[in-house]
């Protein structure tokens, strides 16, 4: 490459620094960039006028006239061609489309048509490279199977060209054909073909129309391979078919998994450096297939700077992702989509600014706080009211509803305001641009700023697409909605990378085909496997290899020859190139070595195959790239005592302590809340609360004594509907509606049971009775609080203290309150809720004689009934003793160790308590003071 630069400047086609008259054609965009760099540096002080440098892809455009006879509009641009194809498809009769795709998109589904158009376009492009139009395939292709399909394509293609012609426009491939057939090839510049050996028929045809002295091919391999190239420097397939790249077997390594390939790269770097010091910017890593991220990450883990020469896809840039999320919300308006959108950092900023503007305060303090609670509020809201569609009407208490409404309004201001919902594509350019402007326009963006940079470049690309949209001829523009327009913009971004910042020295990761002109002294190539190298052309099922042969299109043989040539060149222009090939893909799929590696003399071939498929080599564990510390410091946070001692507890809290003191600590001492917005339906608690709320009506005078189950059921049903819509609004998620019916069903049986109890003479004394009992433990006061669902009284049977339970299984108090410990056959208390109710009831003058029990509303309605807990005095006093025991431990701050048996349900503490840890017992020990884990 440096030689090429020097040559251009000194010998060159016209010596001197003014290369404005020179057109250099290079294989890829990286070579393009690199050549200019080298020229610039070489030409300092020589008033360099850079040559025009294009990739092979851009060559044709340079050799064609701007305007064509009869086509005043000139050649149609990419976008126009694409959209035209789409509308041809969309207007075509179904029978025709079905030949292309059995399930055509709906008429209005433009994205669907666009992707179909793209596939069709791809076929056209591939044929175009061979100077063919889709219409000509059937004629040229012997034994073509699927003739009907090609007929369809042919027909559509005609309509497409016609539609363009109406606009005075011309299809690119058609234009190239005209240029060649009518000898219109023009080019003022001297053409230098720099290692542009992957020439297609169309290139050859165009180039051969140029006078010989206007052409200079530069070849990149030693003279010995001169016959390997034609007069344009294009490769000669036959020649390379039986040439073997000069591979040195000592530099060829076979490993198992992708990580091992990355590791092999590291080993290579190390070896090179030990051989003679080498810096990051002297190393290039060739990437076959999709190994890029793995290699890069491994380098970074090892502390080596790395850069991807291809850059990051624009579609993953912040502005693009924002548009995507915005469109999704505009389209479906679901709570989830809003939650997504609000989690986009730039939207978060935007909403924050909006809030600040509203608050009129410049210091964002309260606003920042707001943002925090916005997402928090959103989560809480989702847990309380479930996620449905966002109606704009926010349920619940104002302190939740109002801020959320503000946030929502702010987001709405990003969407196109009033105006038709469907418009010609071009008319969406401005709304889209403005949405982005609202989010990014508030401050100048730094081009050279580390974080702004990518945003700037992305906005620039998007801006380009938007102005292109404005330029589109009216009749190419489909009428779409905002979301589809956004989809269009994103589609146009596809395949447009955002280059990574240059400047800093780094190891560069380069695609195999770009390696040809790389001039780094050290090179390693990974992913040398079939399917990755030679790189398959985006597999087009309509053009299998046999068809390509018939059509004179370059096929597999061509690619193989091309890559052999490339590899040969790489190996010959530097010493010691490390070649790596893997046995398995990331998903475990077995791989095969690239044929490039197996193109060798007999002995070498046999040796390599034997090595690659060597049986019984134990897989080595992946490299350990970092040095571990003396001990693992990730432990279970040991309880601290810097919290005020608890002096009151809810009756239900005791169960938590008995289940696991540590989790009790997290929940009741630290009060760690946990919720998440993934609930798609009423969870157990919400379901239960609904029931409780509804059941309260039973206390109303006219129902207290109501013996008619029907009547009771009716009132319960009405009350249920009321509390339900109060909680979930008028547009609740479908699943919840279904649950509502299930609950109604259960309540019917509850009604029967209630009526029955009434008949037996029971009367409701209290419901939802807030209770508070002050007890003395070791002379110290302690408060127990709780709410008793219901207390019934009976003239001669006394009191019943009742707790409603809506658990599916409908367990009895015995089952929930007492259990066997492993290895012992005696039961012990696991929950104290009901016994402690006695303490609370006492405050209301209800004696210890009262009967305790559940009113179960289980999934099996047959079991809907009051289930008493027959505990004798002895047991109850045992319970009370345990109560005091718990109180003492809580006072003493005994919250360790955690129970080994983690809860079956997700209580949000699994991570803290290391529930999933392989060696949990060990970690618990190490986490305690004195455990060797604690420094």
């Amino acid at each position, binding site marked *: 490459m440096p030689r090429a630069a020097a040559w251009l400047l000194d010998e060159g086609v016209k010596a001197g620094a003014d290369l404005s008259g020179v057109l250099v054609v290079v294989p890829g965009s990286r070579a393009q960039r690199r050549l200019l760099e080298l020229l610039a540096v070489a030409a300092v002080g020589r008033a360099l006028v850079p040559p025009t440098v294009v990739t092979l892809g851009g060559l044709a455009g340079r050799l064609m006239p701007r305007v064509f006879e009869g086509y005043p509009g000139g050649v149609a641009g990419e976008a126009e061609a694409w959209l035209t194809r789409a509308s041809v498809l969309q207007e075509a009769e179904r029978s025709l489309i079905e030949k292309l795709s059995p399930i055509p998109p709906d008429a209005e589904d433009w994205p669907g048509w666009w992707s179909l158009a793209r596939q069709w376009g791809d076929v056209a492009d591939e044929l175009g490279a061979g100077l063919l139009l889709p219409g000509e395939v059937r004629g040229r292709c012997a034994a073509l199977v699927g003739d009907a399909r090609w007929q369809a394509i042919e027909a559509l293609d005609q309509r497409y060209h016609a539609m363009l012609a109406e606009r005075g426009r011309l299809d690119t491939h058609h234009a190239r054909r005209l240029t060649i057939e009518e000898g219109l090839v023009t080019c003022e510049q001297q053409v230098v073909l720099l290692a542009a050996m992957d020439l297609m028929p169309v290139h050859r045809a165009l180039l051969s129309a140029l006078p010989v002295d206007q052409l200079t091919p530069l070849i990149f391999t030693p003279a010995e391979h001169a016959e390997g190239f034609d007069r344009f420097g294009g490769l000669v397939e036959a020649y390379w078919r039986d040439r073997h790249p000069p591979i040195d077997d000592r530099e060829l390594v076979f490993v198992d998994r992708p990580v091992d390939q990355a590791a092999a790269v590291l080993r290579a770097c190390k070896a090179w450096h030990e051989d003679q010091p080498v*810096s990051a910017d002297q190393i290039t890593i060739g990437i076959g297939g999709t190994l890029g991220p793995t290699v890069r*990450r491994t380098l970074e883990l090892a502390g080596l700077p790395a850069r991807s020469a291809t850059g990051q896809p624009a579609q993953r840039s912040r502005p693009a992702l924002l548009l995507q999320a915005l469109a999704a919300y505009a389209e479906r308006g679901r709570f989830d989509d809003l939650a997504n959108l609000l989690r986009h950092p730039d939207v978060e900023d935007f909403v924050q600014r909006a809030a600040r503007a509203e608050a009129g305060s410049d210091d964002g303090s309260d606003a920042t706080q707001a943002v925090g609670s916005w997402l928090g509020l959103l989560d809480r809201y989702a847990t309380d009211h479930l996620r449905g569609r966002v109606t704009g009407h926010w349920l619940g208490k104002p302190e939740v509803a109002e801020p959320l409404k503000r946030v929502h309004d702010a987001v709405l201001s990003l969407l196109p305001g009033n105006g038709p919902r469907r418009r010609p594509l071009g008319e969406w350019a401005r709304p889209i641009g403005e949405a982005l402007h609202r989010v990014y326009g508030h401050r100048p963006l730094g081009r050279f700023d580390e974080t702004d940079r990518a945003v700037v470049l992305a906005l620039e690309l*998007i*801006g380009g697409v938007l102005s292109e949209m404005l330029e589109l001829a009216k009749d190419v523009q489909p009428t779409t909605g905002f979301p589809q327009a956004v989809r269009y913009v994103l589609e146009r971004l596809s395949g447009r990378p955002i280059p990574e910042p240059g400047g800093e020295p780094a190891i*560069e990761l380069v695609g195999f085909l770009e390696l040809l002109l790389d001039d780094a002294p050290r090179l390693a190539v990974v992913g040398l496997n079939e399917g990755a190298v030679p790189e398959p052309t985006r597999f087009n099922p309509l053009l299998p290899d046999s068809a390509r042969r018939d059509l004179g299109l370059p096929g597999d043989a061509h690619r193989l020859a091309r890559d052999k040539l490339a590899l040969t060149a790489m190996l010959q222009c530097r010493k010691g190139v490390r070649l790596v090939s893997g046995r398995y893909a990331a998903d475990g799929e077995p791989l095969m070595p690239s044929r490039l590696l197996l193109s060798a003399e007999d002995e070498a071939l*046999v040796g390599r195959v034997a090595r690659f498929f060597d049986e019984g080599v134990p897989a080595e564990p992946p490299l*350990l790239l970092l040095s571990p510390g003396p001990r693992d410091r990730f432990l279970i946070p040991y309880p601290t005592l810097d919290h005020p001692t608890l002096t009151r507890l809810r009756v239900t809290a005791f169960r938590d302590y008995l289940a696991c003191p540590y989790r009790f600590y997290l929940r009741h001492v630290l009060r760690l809340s*946990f919720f998440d917005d993934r609930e798609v339906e009423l969870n157990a608690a919400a379901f239960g609360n609904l029931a409780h709320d509804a059941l309260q009506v039973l206390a109303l005078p006219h129902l207290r004594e109501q013996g008619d189950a029907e009547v009771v059921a009716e009132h319960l049903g009405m009350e249920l509907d009321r509390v339900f819509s109060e909680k979930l609004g008028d547009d609740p998620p479908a699943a919840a509606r*279904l649950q509502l019916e299930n609950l109604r069903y259960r309540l019917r049986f509850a009604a029967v049971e209630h009526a029955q109890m009434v008949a037996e003479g029971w009367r409701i004394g209290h419901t939802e009775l807030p209770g508070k009992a002050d007890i003395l433990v070791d002379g110290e006061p302690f408060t127990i609080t709780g709410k008793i669902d219901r207390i019934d009284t009976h003239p001669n049977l006394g009191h019943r203290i009742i707790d409603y339970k809506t658990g599916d299984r409908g367990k009895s108090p015995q089952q929930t309150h007492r259990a066997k410990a492993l290895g012992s056959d005696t039961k012990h208390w696991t929950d104290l809720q009901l016994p402690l109710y006695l303490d609370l009831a006492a405050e209301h003058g209800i004696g210890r004689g009262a009967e305790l029990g559940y009113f179960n509303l289980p999934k099996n309605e047959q079991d809907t009934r009051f289930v008493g807990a027959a505990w004798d005095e002895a047991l109850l006093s045992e319970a009370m003793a345990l109560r005091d025991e718990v109180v003492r431990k809580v006072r003493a701050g005994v919250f360790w160790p955690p129970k080994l048996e983690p809860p079956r349900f997700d209580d949000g503490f699994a991570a*803290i308590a290391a529930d999933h840890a392989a060696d949990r017992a060990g970690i618990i020990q190490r986490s305690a003071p004195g455990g060797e884990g604690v420094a």
Partner: protein
Amino acid sequence: MTPHVGDDFLRQTYGKTTDPAGATPSPHAVIRASAGAGKTYQLTTRYLRLLRAGASPPTILATTFTRKAAGEILQRVLGRLAKACRSEEERAKLEADLGGFPLSSAECLSMLRRLVETLHRLAISTIDSFFNRAAGALRFELGLPADPRLTDEGSPLSRRLRLEAIQAQLGDALASDGGLQTLIELLRRLHHDTTQRSVTDALDTIAQSLYDIYRQYPDPELWANVDYHKPLGPELLAISIESRELAAASLPKAKRTGKTDGRWAEAYRQLLERARGGMYEAVLSNGLVKAMPPAGGGKYYRIMLPEELIEAIRPIKAHAAASVVHDLLGQTRATHQLLAGFHGHYERLRRRERVLLFSDLTHLLARYAPDDDQDAFLSELYYRLDAQVTHLLLDEFQDTSLDQWDVIRGFASEIAAVGDGQRSVFCVGDVKQAIYGWRGGCAEIFDEIERLPGLEDKALSSLTKSYRSSQVVLDLVNRVFGDLPANAALADTGAAANLWQGYYQKHQAAKDLPGHVVLHSTRSSGGKAALTGRRDEDAALGLDSDPHWVYTAGYIESLHQAIPGRSIGVLMRRRKSAAPLLHALRNLGVDVSEEGGNPVDNVPAVAAVLSAIRLADHPADAAAAYHVINSPLGHLVGLDSRNERDAAAVAGRLRRDLMDHGYSAVIARWTRALAGSCDERSLRRLQQLVELAEQHDADGGLRPGQFVDAVRSARVEDPSAAPVRVMTIHAAKGLEFDAVVLPELHGRLNANDQRDLLLVDRPSPIDPPTNIMRRPNKVLTATIADLELAMARAAAEQRGEDLSLLYVAMTRPRHALHLLVPPATYSDKGKQNKTHVSDLSYAAMLRQALGVSAEQDPAEGGATLYERGDAAWAKPTLSPLAKAPAIGHDALFKIELAQSHAAVPRRSWAEASPSKLSSGGHTHAADLLGLGETGGLGWGSAIHALYEQIGFIDEQPIPDDRALASILQGVAPSVDGAAVIAAIRRQLDVPAIREALMRHGADELWRERSFLVPADGRLLRGQFDRVLIWRDSGGAAVRARLIDFKTDRIDYATLADRVADYRGQIAGYRVALATMLGIHSDAVEAALVFLGDGRVVAVDTDR
């Protein structure tokens, strides 16, 4: 290959290895191979023979089921050849394998070459990836996206889509009238007439369990496709009930009292009452009805039912049955409706997100391959794949699903039909290992392929030598499976046992390996003290779980200690049963790896990282915040308080970071920073987390939570985990272990039959169903003969699979097999509960087969009930290969490179153009988005294009309008040319502008000249609008003036700051120009020409 195919050829290609001279063999082969009989070896040998016979590799399609197996086949095909090329000994072995015909190494080499040349078209793969290829080739026909996202039912992605589909489906149901009711009924039915709280999961279960059946048979005609006689009309019914009152008379009298027997009277009363109440299921379970002949034997309380009574009951029973069936059929249709609705939404969603399941590919292909026109399908497929399949090699054939078979059959029958000896079908498998029935895999296909025209029962053979297991193990297998019909435990499996038996042949060991087999009873309660010294601790820690599992854990621990370094496979029937065992094992400090590895968050460091990411998603998640703060990570992400505001701020930063750099980069950074706080294992797990993050970066969404879910659901092998692996028997298929423990042998095998929601009734498993309906319960089944038959068929299928499952499990070990069963229980009178020997359970089956007597079988358990072989088998021979790779063997890898000493960057300069340098590289979204453009797009470029035409205005004339217009046509066709030209003319009348365009004695004029200049580490590139250059006598440049045209209007107030804005840009230009001309930048003066306002401003950039 010669057109004429001689016997020699046939013999050489297809003949038995043993007798090269034998009779002319058939080209086809169907081999029933037992476990460990070396299927892969057989298949690869066949492959090589074909290759040798001249078959071109792309025409040989060899498929198997697991990627591992596919890898082995490749390895054996290419590896064996390569070895044969190098070593005389290997060549001789291969020669023998290929039939004993002389095989030169030259021939090996040419075979190898032929393989290598077509490597890219080799058709050796899993059946899934072959179908993937085929479907890709037929992308258009099948309507597949060009770039699908392939995944499987288990992935979070497909679960998400399922749930969305369900929500949508529910929405529809609610919208449609009666839809809601149907759903509720359906769900009640699913939960055995209860109203379970959660509906979404219930529906997801349906979606998962029934969707495949629906997709295979969507035709509503097939559903509820039975007509048992209709229920009676109301009045008829009334008669048939009431008129039977008198029948009461015929009830038998009690001898003593002479009164009607109370029990009979009561039963009859109840019967009529239920009939009136329409409680038809209850009617069917009424004692008298149950007693009805023939099924019921006609006796009630040992007394014959009187004829009148039978006559009386018959119509009621019939009506009851009919009504219940009616009810059932209703639900069946509802189910179909539900599935159809779900299907619609699911498909739409998947198409929208381009998500494809492997099962889709198979399914679509199966549907696309029409039975009537196979040839057209094949020729099209062959054309697209660039290869015709002339040889078919099928591995693990018994696992082929019906859908897959529908596709494969085409290839097979075409080949079989052409008997030219140049095409062949080869399939190897083992019906005894058909354990994928629930997935549609079905052994009967085996029988079908044997019946294929052209293949009929030719070349069937079977292999019973095991190259895997010790004879000791095989003896046990032989003893258990050698005589199933005699096994009392299998009494009521009907034909299943016999059928299965038919496939079984005595197994024999090929190698002489030491072995050990044990049948051992665990503890029922309080049993674990004996085994683990940790009991008190556990009690203190409150460990309470099923003693059977605790005992098993202890057993495994001691086994592991007894045979260190040897692989132990603990194989479970159901995946969920593994949980308690895994837990118990971990409490004993036994380091186990689960099926396919464990979630990476089994080390706390990873868990903490996930908490941080969860916090990014949920700033208000105090638990996550607390976790992060109290881990080394807290300091790293700068979180030190639980205050929600701070958490929110950090969360915001995290999300931005994750979005800008990707998850893998961020986590990699953390990992580096945290290394010192981790032990080696945590560090390795963190590295693996980074790998997972890379996969996520490809197409992760905006929600960090999704990443957490993905990670938690991914299983990753932990290199440091011990060689004890707990997995399902299904997952263990195709694997082998030194020792195998089977701890889940108890539990009735038919316990779950009722769980199945649907009864798919078909004459044989490979026939299309004649009827699909909700599964009837026992009572009903007993009532209707056809149903009974259907159910029996279904059950038999199931039992066969149960036997296969045990067979697979028992044939995994190389050396040792440990069977753990709960102890027998005894009545108070000390009589053994007979279920332990008669139950339809593996445990009972084994007790029976191994003749365990009650005496040997103590109630407290912990006893060895049967034992053979040598417990110390491991001692003498410890093969190094069986050792797990020691961790840290490739110790810490450190690397450092030299600093780059290059004065200027060696490559990849940061690029900049002066215009981008304006206002210090700062820019505005409005400009970037083209919202700021004045005079419309392209206006600016048009103006510049025209000024390029103007030389020294005081010397050259300006081109006329026509010339200008034609130029515009080229550069900016869309702008209004006339307007632009008019504008120019106006501007040129402005004195200041004319002045700027004059020569002023300059020697040279550049117009729109592009430049490329390295300056302070950046590459400046751009275009000078206009440059005047003065040179000295020697022609060297001495002074230059650059002029920059600005087309945008500005009002005078802002002129100053506007100029200031451009200062950076002009500075850039001056540097560039100076460097180019090799003069000092002071010698370069610059001027901005605001064309719109006709103002020319000299810019001094040094200020």
